[in-house]
């Protein structure tokens, strides 16, 4: 009798182990140490993770997720070691700044261009984007135009130092993706930029 109960319990645990489709989510710091936020939502409720190493589980769609619990680094590594081992190197970023209403490269651009080139070569990358931005001085249409010219100037400078143009995705966002969000018509030098992302 006892053996039979144990056997049934064993089978029962096998079934749970094999067929549960639970979801575990862990929020961790990114390579720069920044911790974001993630909401885990089922049909019955939601748990928001806001701190490093916080985790929640959603065992079933009809049940609310568990409360947030903080996991140790070791536990996280044990759970995700194989996946974390194959993570690509995060993209690298280089920034070029501009005067108001202008798309000319400043003197310091040369050093940044050299660094970008070194990073492209070190990663053997043929996968980069050159993205032009503007601050919010002037109207949207004008800023789209100036951000396009800025992206073009940096792309040309990269081509001039030997970067293959086929590896570049050249884009411009006008004032829509500020580094520093501001009110309209604010002169913000940190937003007058081109960002080169090397992937």
């Amino acid at each position: 009798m006892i053996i039979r109960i144990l056997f049934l319990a064993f089978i029962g645990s096998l079934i749970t182990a094999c067929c549960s489709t639970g979801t575990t989510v862990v929020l961790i710091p990114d390579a720069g140490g920044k911790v974001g936020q993630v909401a885990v939502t089922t049909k019955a409720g939601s748990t928001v993770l806001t701190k490093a190493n916080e985790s929640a589980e959603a065992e079933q769609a009809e049940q609310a997720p568990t409360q947030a619990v903080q996991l140790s680094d070791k536990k996280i590594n044990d759970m995700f070691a194989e996946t974390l081992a194959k993570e690509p190197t995060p993209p690298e970023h280089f920034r070029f700044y501009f005067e108001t209403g202008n798309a000319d490269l400043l003197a310091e651009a040369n050093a940044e261009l050299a660094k970008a080139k070194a990073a492209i070569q070190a990663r053997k990358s043929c996968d980069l984007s050159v993205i032009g931005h503007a601050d919010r001085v002037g109207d949207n249409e004008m800023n789209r135009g100036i951000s396009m010219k800025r992206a073009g100037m940096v792309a040309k400078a990269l081509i001039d130092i030997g970067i293959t143009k086929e590896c570049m995705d050249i884009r411009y966002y006008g004032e829509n993706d500020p580094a520093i969000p501001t009110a309209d018509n604010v002169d913000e030098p940190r937003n007058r930029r081109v960002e080169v992302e090397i992937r």
Partner: protein
Amino acid sequence: MILRYKNYLTQSAVHFVLFGILLLISPTSIATGRIGLVKTYQPVATVIRQGAEINLQVGAEIFEGDTIITNSDGAVGIIFSDGAVLTLGPSGKLIVEDFLFKPAEHNVSFISRVVKGSVAFVSGAIGRISPGSVQFKTPTATLGLRGTKILIEVD
């Protein structure tokens, strides 16, 4: 007069350069449609695209709608065109359901479905421009990411 002529020359040179740049811009952003590239690969990982299963490798292109599958030894790391980094561990299955990256028109979205396996994800420009636009769906839950790095396990 000479000065004016010089000015004219500089201006037309600038226009010429800009025209060349415009020619550069259009083909890359419109024609390819690729949304990411494979950066790390451990066999075996494949992608199912329009009904056909294709082996992945470092440098392989990823498109919207792709179903990415890894076997019990496989893993694959992808960097998307917004700079987001996604790694799918062994015995995984993930579908990139929706990838829209047009920040100039304020039009961005990144929705993936994790059917099984482990995922490490670091959000990129889409998450920065529009927090809440990066979502993962699993069999039991929806995950709304507001930057930057999460780990997901579906079993």
